[in-house]
């Protein structure tokens, strides 16, 4: 491979990595509070659809992204009520949420006729003065959302490790009984975590539709939400490891079009399998190395019921 192919590849990596990174970060927030959030695939679709709808109506990418976050949060309220107050099995509730969202987005998308309408996306923003570097300067011309992702990660990591609110949220996910005894309102913290996490997952979906592909197709997230769920396990619920994992996946996905452009002949459908195969491989590797198994939130997936002995 020549140097320019490598540069092109690396320059297009963030575009593929951002949805994974944001979705995984959203999932980490909710799972740190003890709520297993399998609904990411569906919430990404809701974000993607709401984003494109707002984009077609108003044409302001910033507004569209915010609308997408609100929409995903609103839909996740249904999930939150089910798992926090009605104590429904979190796996069943998460799966139901995915299929609810798949059906809902396909229905709304076709009724509102938002399918396959191209919109204007966000332009690139050069990170001066790095963008003036000869050759490698292209790496620093990315859209605003890519640059915004870093402060979002910084803020969440800081929240978890440096604030008392972050400590409370983690306590709720680690040992809700003890947190309750210490006067922390478990249900409220879990609700807040689900809503905030879902907003980020919705933003990840909207990034795909509003910023990357700039149009809506039913089911367009294509399993990225599930990959993000796997990524969280790989990252052991740590934001920075999730960012690294997202970059790895972005690299792999970005390589495919570059290879095709360079004229390398690959069997198309086997190439399309790679993200899923890599996810599977990563899961196996995590299991084999058995590193940091204790980092999993202690009460992940368990409903908290006061006065119930388990």
């Amino acid at each position, binding site marked *: 491979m020549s140097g320019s192919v490598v540069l092109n590849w690396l320059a297009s990596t963030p575009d593929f990595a951002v949805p994974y990174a944001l979705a995984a970060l959203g999932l980490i927030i909710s799972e740190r509070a003890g709520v297993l959030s*399998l609904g990411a695939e569906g919430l990404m679709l809701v974000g993607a659809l709401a984003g494109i709808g707002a984009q077609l109506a108003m044409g302001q990418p910033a507004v569209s992204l915010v609308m997408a976050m609100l929409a995903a949060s609103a839909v996740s309220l*249904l999930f939150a009520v*089910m798992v926090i107050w*009605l*104590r*429904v*099995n979190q*796996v*069943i*509730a998460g*799966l*139901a*949420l995915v*299929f*609810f969202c*798949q*059906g*809902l987005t*396909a*229905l709304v998308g*076709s*009724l509102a006729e938002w399918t396959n309408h191209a919109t204007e996306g966000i332009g690139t923003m050069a990170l001066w003065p790095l963008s003036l570097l000869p050759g490698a300067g292209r790496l620093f011309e990315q859209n605003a959302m890519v640059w915004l992702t870093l402060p979002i990660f910084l803020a969440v990591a800081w929240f978890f490790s440096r604030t008392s609110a972050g400590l409370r949220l983690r306590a709720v996910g680690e040992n809700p009984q003890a947190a309750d005894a210490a006067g922390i309102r478990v249900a409220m913290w879990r609700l807040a975590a689900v809503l905030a996490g879902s907003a980020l997952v919705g933003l990840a979906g909207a990034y795909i539709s509003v910023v990357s592909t700039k149009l809506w197709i*039913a089911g367009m997230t*294509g*399993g990225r939400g*599930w*990959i993000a*769920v*796997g990524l969280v*396990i790989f990252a052991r619920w740590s934001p920075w490891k999730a960012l690294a994992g997202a970059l790895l996946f972005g690299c792999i996905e970005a390589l495919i079009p570059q290879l095709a452009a360079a004229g390398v002949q690959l*069997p*198309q*459908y*086997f190439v*399309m*399998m790679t993200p*899923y*195969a890599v*996810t*599977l491989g990563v*899961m*196996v590797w995590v*299991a*084999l190395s058995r590193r940091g198994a204790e980092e999993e939130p202690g009460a992940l997936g368990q409903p908290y*019921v*006061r*006065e*119930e002995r388990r």
Partner: protein
Amino acid sequence: MVDATLAAIAQPAQTDPEAALRARRQPLARRRYALEIRQHMGWRRQALILAAALLAGLAISAAILVAAGVPANELANEFVMQTFFDGQNLRAVLFQAAPMILVGLAGSLAFRARFWNLGLEGQMIWGAIGATAVSMWQIGPEPLRLPLMFAAAIGCGLLWVLGPAWLKIRLGVNEIISTLMLNYMAANFLLHLVYGSWKDPKDNFPYSPQFRAFERLPELGAGVSSAIALAAVVALFAWWLVGLSRAGLYLRFVDANPRVAHANGVPVRRTIYGAVLLSGAMAGLAGFAVASGQEGRLTQAFYQGYGFSGILIAFLARNNPLAATVVALLVAALFVTGRSLQVFYQVPFSMVQLIQAIIVVCVAASDFFIRHRLRRVGAEAAQ
């Protein structure tokens, strides 16, 4: 917790009618409610709550359909009259029910072993690929062809779930993610086949060449396919396995508590493997039922929606094989109705998915009222 228990001992019960009346007269804002775990509820009340949840789910779905532009009276006519009281549509429901029953049984068997087999679609795809391979390569003499396709479907479905089962049992790899990833991989492999070397040379559409007549599941008469008979036999087998056999007993032990089961000499691993592999085999059979019973060839998107329906059927039936068969018939009716709505009112087929999800949400929420009760705590107890 201790305080509440002590209070209950000190004040045995709220039997005093005076106190109850006083509690009722309290202003709404000052009333306190306590949530209690219900020990037991009679099956009649359970059934009533379940029926109410189903009705609520259907009512919400009907409201969405009306909002989507389907006239309300047409809707009732379409779902109730056309689907259940019209001979042709009833046959369509039975036709559609065979793969539904098989995936529903597959789901409930795996869930009984506490294995979230979300890879039903992938196993279905491989079942259909296996059956089609026997037809494509013309393996075996004509009278043996159908049994061979049947065996190939079982084998392929079983092998496709073997990987995640092994990874889960040996390495503790989360089976939800692994089976889902394998779904996407199987779907891409299917596309590779039907757009590649298995493409029908006659018309260049992305499907395999048509099966010959002796490779199709025959009709039983009156337009009913033998696929439904096959599904019924598998359902009876599953009922015997789960309810009457020793393996079923083991499975119940494992479901209740794997550790205690192991301590009591139940072969936990073998039981889980058995249930999960059988689940994959049944999903493979569902692929065979669609390919050989319905489509008559391998098509590119035949599996869509079955995975979720299988999970839904297993959940609604509480993993009971006979209940799963009944629920599968209802879901098949929903599918048939959905198809005709799609044709007549341009309602997207994903509507069927949405309705199923709404029903699951309602039934899952209704579980709460079966397991808990709200009890008003009187003024004295609240203070």
